């Protein structure tokens, strides 16, 4: 007997759906459930139902609100710089045409590097005393002494320093996506604009960027969501310090859970963080992607 197409499709999707239900949806359910309890970190200790108390504590805590703002600032800096650099490189590769293809490939290499390795590498470059960046800037006469800027030890700038490896790792991705978009801009259009006497800035702001809008939107959303979840690079560079100045949401939740042994509070923070991310995701999907309608 032949089963209906609809049922056949369901059977094909069932294993993956089951997997995601068990290993993503259920842990999320556990997270939300845990957020309603006061939990002792000692295994087997009693759990007390406290209702929304953990949420009240989260919103009342300076660490949580601080981490929220830092996550926003971090995400903004990472995505903005990546976009500017990625667009610059994409335009450069486009202007040079297919002879730059080899270099376009080489330019992708940071994408294959583990974030943990990138974090370590940049920590090594920016670290006080034997960090190379301070030394090179000193030798170039820009800094009076190699340790003048405490890239990773000055609370005022550390949030931007820890963003560097993230930017370095994924500017290639931005470049790649924008490059693909640039290839679809009709050449006739550019030539026509050039014949009309359009200069480079006009070309960029009145023609290229508006035409790239959908691609830009997708690239920004994908990267924004990843940057807001950044963990590895920051943990390895500063562990959130000094004085929590580089503690973003992922780190705060991790530390609340593991170091400070408060799974209930950490779960509440995680739930709020998750809802914020999903809110952004839904908004982005509804306004930009509209999957299934792109044909």
């Amino acid at each position: 007997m032949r089963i209906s197409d609809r049922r056949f499709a369901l059977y094909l999707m069932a294993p993956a759906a089951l997997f995601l239900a068990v290993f993503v949806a259920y842990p999320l359910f556990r997270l939300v459930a845990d957020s309603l309890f006061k939990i002792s970190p000692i295994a087997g200790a009693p759990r007390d139902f406290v209702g929304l108390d953990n949420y009240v504590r989260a919103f009342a805590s300076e660490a949580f609100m601080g981490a929220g703002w830092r996550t926003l600032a971090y995400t903004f800096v990472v995505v903005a710089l990546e976009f500017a650099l990625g667009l610059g490189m994409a335009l450069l590769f486009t202007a040079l045409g297919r002879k730059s293809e080899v270099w376009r490939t080489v330019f992708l290499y940071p994408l294959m590097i583990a974030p943990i390795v990138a974090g370590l590498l940049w920590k090594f470059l920016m670290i006080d005393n034997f960090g190379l960046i301070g030394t090179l800037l000193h030798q170039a006469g820009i800094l009076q002494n190699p340790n003048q800027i405490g890239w990773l030890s000055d609370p005022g700038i550390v949030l931007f320093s820890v963003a560097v490896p993230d930017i370095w790792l994924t500017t290639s991705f931005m470049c790649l996506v924008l490059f693909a978009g640039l290839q679809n801009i009709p050449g006739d259009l550019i030539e026509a604009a050039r014949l009309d006497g359009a200069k480079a800035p006009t070309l960029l702001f009145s023609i290229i960027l508006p035409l790239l809008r959908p691609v830009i939107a997708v690239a920004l959303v994908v990267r924004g969501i990843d940057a807001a979840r950044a963990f590895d690079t920051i943990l390895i560079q500063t562990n959130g310090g000094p004085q929590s100045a580089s503690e973003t949401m992922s780190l705060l939740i991790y530390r609340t859970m593991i170091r400070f042994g408060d799974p209930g509070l950490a779960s509440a923070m995680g739930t709020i963080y998750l809802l914020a991310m999903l809110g952004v995701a839904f908004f982005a999907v509804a306004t930009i992607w509209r999957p299934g309608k792109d044909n």
Partner: protein
Amino acid sequence: MSTADTPINDRFAAEAVAYRPRHAGVVSAILATGTKTSGATAGAAPTGAMPAEPAMPTPAASGTGRPRRRNHHAEGLEAGKRTTRILLWIVLAAAMVLYGFPFLYLLFTSFKTPIDTIAVPPTILPKEWTLENYANALGRNGVLASFINSAQTAVISTLLSLVLAVPAAYGITRYKTPSGRVFIMAALVTRMVPPVAIGIPLASMMATAGLADTPIALSIAHTTISLPLSIWLMSSFFEAVPNDLEEAATVDGCSRLGALWRVVIPVVSGGIAVTAIFAFLASWNEFLFALLMTAIRSQTTPVVIANFQTQFGLDWGSMTALAAVYSIPVILLTLLLQRKIVAGMTLGAVKG
């Protein structure tokens, strides 16, 4: 670079054509690349550089065939003037040096003597080249085991992702049922979940199941990351396969499952290779789940690298050596397979 020999030039030209479907959205452009890739790989092995396609017209072929013009024949956004092009090449060279330097510095440092790695002021090149750091790093307890763990975890996770994602993506794209639409949205939303939010509950579930500190548990965790991406990638690849293909097969007496297995899967083998690479990389480079879910037995190399800085003080030399050993194979592998990866990466961005 401008004097590249002809076969390579041809390959670039073919690629340039594939990248240049005019008046089309990104999605279709990339789908064109995807189709071409999968079509061409149907017969060949899914690895290695793509063969040049002689049938492909190469309208932009300059250099070898025609007499050289003073000004490069530019079209669209390509720079035309010779001086502009030279200037842009210089800018590109500077950008490549800056962008490539950090990793080169990591390599140079790994060949320094342990004392030189933290010399003040630091030097770029080693004063004395030595393999001491490599011997130290690889000789350390648990390091080689961590490589095996990393490889094991990544392979299991990749296979699991493919086994689950390929049929699911096929079900979504071929039958377009409402449940399929809901499912692909759900998969997309899964991509937004911060790993830190599910890491701890997942770890305790694995412990309950008796899988604590095993590569299986970690590869399941990694699959929660790679599965949604794999479903999205595979959906795009299936989307590019014409329906007639398996209709013809079913008319010839194939069952739907048989048509999928014998007709469709071979056609999308290129896409499966791309998806596999992404799933592998996601697991190979993952750190947070590995940190939460592994102890001694199943520790992967990223965790070992991170532990170097606490456990053994600041042993930068060994750390750079280990980081180099861990990164270079995947960099080489992916550079070799770059055409597929570029197609997949752009697809992934556009689709999920």
